[in-house]
């Protein structure tokens, strides 16, 4: 009676255990690692810029070129959890005088006349189970660019951070790495000085920022 398995079966068995299993595991781990950490999957970077209605609004022009303060449009950033997306009236404050006949701004004027808000597209969409408050971060020395990047250089805004929870915790565990004086909050090109940790610890003291044990309490962000 012929054998069911020939001699090669032993080699196949050894190969599958010592080569097959590690290779499959490696592939699975790599795919998972890429999927959870890749900027491409997480929509981060210039390739994932979020185009706005009308197609032409440029932060580079308004912030970089015209040197407008962030708070002119995002006017509740210091007092509210939401930084605020400007209403059409805010746009028309300038554009009733400036470029008031430009065809590019037709949709803004239509919105103003018809009293229908422009549906701006969200760039940073936080999950609903996260409580985030802009005002406390601004008040305690976290500048816009720490999270949003150098907006003044972006014609169309994109995310510079994937908003991982570990990224939030990096700062909540050691805020001194990122704190800046109040005068620098809205500076979009701020870079930490050489003695940032020293300065940061001093600022942490001045701002009265709590210790990391309290800052990393679950209910600080998940309420």
């Amino acid at each position, binding site marked *: 009676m012929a054998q*069911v398995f020939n001699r090669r079966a032993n080699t196949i068995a050894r190969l599958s255990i010592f080569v097959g299993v590690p290779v499959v595991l490696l592939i699975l781990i790599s795919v998972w690692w890429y999927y*959870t950490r890749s900027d491409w999957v997480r929509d981060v970077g210039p390739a994932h810029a979020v185009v706005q209605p009308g197609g032409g609004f440029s932060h580079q022009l308004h912030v970089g070129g015209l040197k407008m303060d962030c708070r002119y449009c995002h006017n509740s950033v210091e007092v509210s959890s939401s930084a605020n997306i400007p209403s059409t009236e805010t746009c028309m404050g300038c554009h009733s005088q400036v470029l008031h006949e430009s065809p590019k701004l037709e949709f803004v004027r239509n919105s103003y006349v018809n009293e229908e808000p422009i549906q701006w597209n969200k760039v940073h969409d936080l999950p609903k189970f996260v409580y985030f408050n802009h005002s406390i971060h601004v008040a305690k020395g976290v500048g816009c660019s720490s999270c949003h990047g150098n907006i003044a250089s972006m014609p169309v805004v994109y995310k510079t951070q994937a908003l*991982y929870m570990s*990224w939030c*915790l990096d700062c909540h565990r050691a805020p001194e790495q990122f704190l800046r004086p109040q005068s620098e909050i809205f500076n979009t090109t701020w870079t930490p000085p050489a003695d940032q940790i020293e300065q940061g610890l001093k600022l942490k003291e001045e701002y009265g920022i709590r210790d990391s044990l309290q800052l990393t309490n679950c209910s600080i962000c998940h309420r």
Partner: protein
Amino acid sequence: MQTSQKINQPVVEKLDELLAPGQTYASVSAKIGDIVLYPVLKTPWGWIGGIAIAGLLLMLYLYSLATLFTVGIGIWGINVPVAWGFDIINFVWWIGIGHAGTLISAILLLFRQDWRTSINRAAEAMTIFAVACAGIYPLVHTGRPWLDYWFLPYPSTLGMWPQFRSPLEWDVFAISTYATVSVLFWFVGLIPDLATLRDRAQHPVAKFFYGALSLGWRGAAKHWQRYEVASLILAGLSTPLVLSVHSIISFDFAVSQLPGWHVTVFPPYFVAGAVYCGFAMVILLMIPIRKLFGLEGLITLKHFDVMSKVMLASGLIVTYGYFGEIFYAWYSASIYEYFLIVNRTVGPYAWSYWALIIFNVLIPQLLWFKRFRTNLPILLVISVAINIGMWFERWVIIVLSLHRDFLPSSWDVYNPSFYDWATFIGSFGLFFVLFFLFIRLLPMITIFEVRDLVHKTAHKAHDQKGH
């Protein structure tokens, strides 16, 4: 086949025998192997009927789980003070049942108890299937089982590890270790028997199936030597698991501060309870299987007698635990502990406490008498009673402690919903479908160990003749 017919003849059963007389190496291999190697079309009707009923229950189980995944845990009867209901009761009950298999396969192997040989394979299979049934409950009771990998400590983008100080996290490790070691131990023990089946099989598909699973076993001396070492190592790994798994599950309760849970006796009391209902389940499974497949020659009354003694001993430890709980409540001088005992005995769920005492404490006292230990119909009834009793024990611990919180304003009652019952009854479907597949596809008795027992028995008889 002549030999197996000879065994099928009615024999006068003697109590002190682990094997009926007249067994030979060939008869053992034929008897056990033929159950598996029957042609598909000659499958016994009892088996087909059994798996059909179990399959229907499995459909009920899948239906209730599918509803759970699409609707959420709101379909269950749980509410705010009673946030753990059937899910955790059934989890603890099923995992407890598994413990008898591990005890039989590991501890009794280390203690060289020969009576384990005929029952250890089926008991280990029971362990694995019971752990599977148990493990599903905590996985689905999260409500979002597709996120259950969050239980595992892996380098995630959350920047957080699971809460290692929580007994619920210890459960993850306890149960996954238990499942892994049990499956490995079971499979390693199967290899020599799978090779026997490969050699006896006629059909090419069966040859391939058993041949692939037997991993090239040729029965060489080196194979046996490595096999003995491997099974001793696995027995050594399994032995602490018999104690640790249910101890850790008892910590889920004992580490909290709820009256009725915060008790130091919990770990040993849980382990004894697990062994208790596990052995009851082994007996419950073995009595019909022995009848259905004519295995009276291999699973004898002696086996049932010994298992009943283990049940009686573990049952007395559990009984001690019940008295202990009453004593601690009085000795603690805490009004909450005191209230708990009053509430258990005369409160709205008093019927369940007294059912527990009747099923777990009173009925098993019959096991003191050899008459009942070797009377299989009565033993079957006692085993069912113990399984019901141990289920009520978890019910009493979980529901009765939760439904009366410290604050009377949060008191409530717990009524299991249709889906609670469907998930519970359906889990028997999963268990029995797996068990029926097991007895059809794998040798339910360890062939080579029984052959070894034939050898030893023959030598003993030889010695007694005065040589």
